[in-house]
């Protein structure tokens, strides 16, 4: 047996009244920004409602982030980034700000009932898995419907699973699910598989998987728990029920920007619009990572954009004081 032990996350019991920089979101972009600003001796608070490392923490294994020739567990990478920020003095609050006033100077962010002032804010709230919006999806959430293979995979030992979405995320996580499941069918709306080749080949090698393309998912069915998924072939219009003990959904991501929707300029999909230096339309507010309009949604890109935002903030604050 092998165990890992995550040391990240002891609580910060006492938050200060004000910080030079408040970063909202603790994924790779937010943590990178915090590493830079803390190391530049700007007092920095990261407010993060998700896991240390954001989405990375829910990814089982990462192979395309430079510096790890054999790949690295998502959980470990996320933790390492958080530890690195902590080491330079970044403080952490877990949860979601109750109120955010970006236009004010200083900016005010309410966390756990406490108003915190910030001279600059970096928004790095990333994205969240999209829902399919079909009957049964909500009803069976936690009873066979899941958006997190690393979390829930172990409950599906020797079960037949259905994965919705043949993009890189869906195929990659299916590879992980194959450790537990007896059989995996990946259902895709489009007539082609979108995932990277290397992922497809690896998935095929598990010998447990197959693809079903050009299918619309109509409903998730079950009794106590999921028993199957109803799909419609988009050519023949034929409907059928595929038996499955669980459904994992990977149909894309949507930005987490509701909290700022009325304060920042967003594009038509809700991503934050920025200039080439990642400045938003509000002075003293930057955005970084997946939440930025037009961003390349990869860890290395998020790390790069966190770096740019942080350095811009350093310049801004030193010119202000």
């Amino acid at each position, binding site marked *: 047996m092998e*165990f890992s*032990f995550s040391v990240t*996350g002891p609580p910060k019991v006492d938050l200060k009244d004000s910080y030079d920089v408040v970063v909202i979101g603790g994924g790779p972009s937010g943590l990178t920004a915090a590493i830079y600003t803390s190391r530049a001796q700007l007092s920095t608070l990261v407010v993060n409602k*998700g*896991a240390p490392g954001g989405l990375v923490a829910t990814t089982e294994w990462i192979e395309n982030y430079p510096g790890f020739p054999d790949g690295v567990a998502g959980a470990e990478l996320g933790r390492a980034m958080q530890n690195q920020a902590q080491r330079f003095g970044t403080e952490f609050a877990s949860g979601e700000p109750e109120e955010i006033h970006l236009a004010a100077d200083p900016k005010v962010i309410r966390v756990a*009932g406490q108003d915190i002032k910030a001279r600059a804010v970096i928004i790095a709230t990333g994205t969240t898995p999209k829902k399919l919006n079909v009957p049964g999806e909500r009803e069976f959430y*936690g009873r066979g419907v*899941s958006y997190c293979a690393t979390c829930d995979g172990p409950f599906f030992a020797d079960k037949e699973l259905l994965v919705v979405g043949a993009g890189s995320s869906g195929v990659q996580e299916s590879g992980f699910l194959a450790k537990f499941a007896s059989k995996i069918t990946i259902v895709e709306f489009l007539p082609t598989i979108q995932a990277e080749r290397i992922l497809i080949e690896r998935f095929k090698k598990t010998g447990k998987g197959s693809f079903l393309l050009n299918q619309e998912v109509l409903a998730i069915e079950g009794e106590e728990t999921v028993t199957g998924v109803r799909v419609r072939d988009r050519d023949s219009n034929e409907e059928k029920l595929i038996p499955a003990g669980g459904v994992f959904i990977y149909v894309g991501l949507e930005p987490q920007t509701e909290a700022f929707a009325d304060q920042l300029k967003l594009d038509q999909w809700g991503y934050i619009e920025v200039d080439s230096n990642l400045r938003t339309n509000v002075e003293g507010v930057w955005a970084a990572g997946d939440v930025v309009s037009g961003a390349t949604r990869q860890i290395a890109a998020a790390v790069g954009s966190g770096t740019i935002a942080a350095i811009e903030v350093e310049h801004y604050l030193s010119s202000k004081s």
Partner: protein
Amino acid sequence: MGMLKDEDKKYIREQFDEKLKGPVKILLFSQKLECEYCQPTEEILTELSELSDKITLDVRNLQIDSDDAKQFGVDKVPAIILLGEQDKDYGIRFFGIPSGYEFSTLLADIIDVSNGKSDLPEKMVDKIAAIKTPVHIKVFVTPTCPYCPNAVRAAHKIAMANPRYIKAQMIESTEFPHLANKYAVYGVPKTIINERVQFEGAMPEAAVVEQVLSALEEPGA
């Protein structure tokens, strides 16, 4: 080679030096046979307890010390209970090894117990402190679930606000499949309050407090 990396040990030691106030006793219920995870749990807790002189580890046996086990409501192993100053029981329970993300939960809980309080906002503490009937919270987790620590922490903080009446358990699902089965756990975190209220996912603390209160309402009221 120990279970913890040297750099992690160093980090934990610093955190403990800075944040621990009063003593914390880690009470571990264990058994020698038919418990795959007891031995590694004892090992990791031994290493952990060596990182601060404020922390002591007390290992008991489920059968031999069955009276103690009963007193703390321990019916399966490994089980961990955190005791504060004068062995005060804060209602915090871990069933199964606190590995993966749950190790960070254990660290945070130790710091809270040592300080005799959590960072749960006062308003919520007052609501919880007013409860005068027993509450049992179970939170099912897997060690690889990054959302789970928040759910366990919320439950443990709530127990700390009223330990006389409230006990909150982390349950590592893969070690206790019969329980996961009984409560139809297919996704984590899953929280069950007094066998009456249950929900999936990590809710904000305020929402969990409301769920606890709703579990106490008379049926049909």
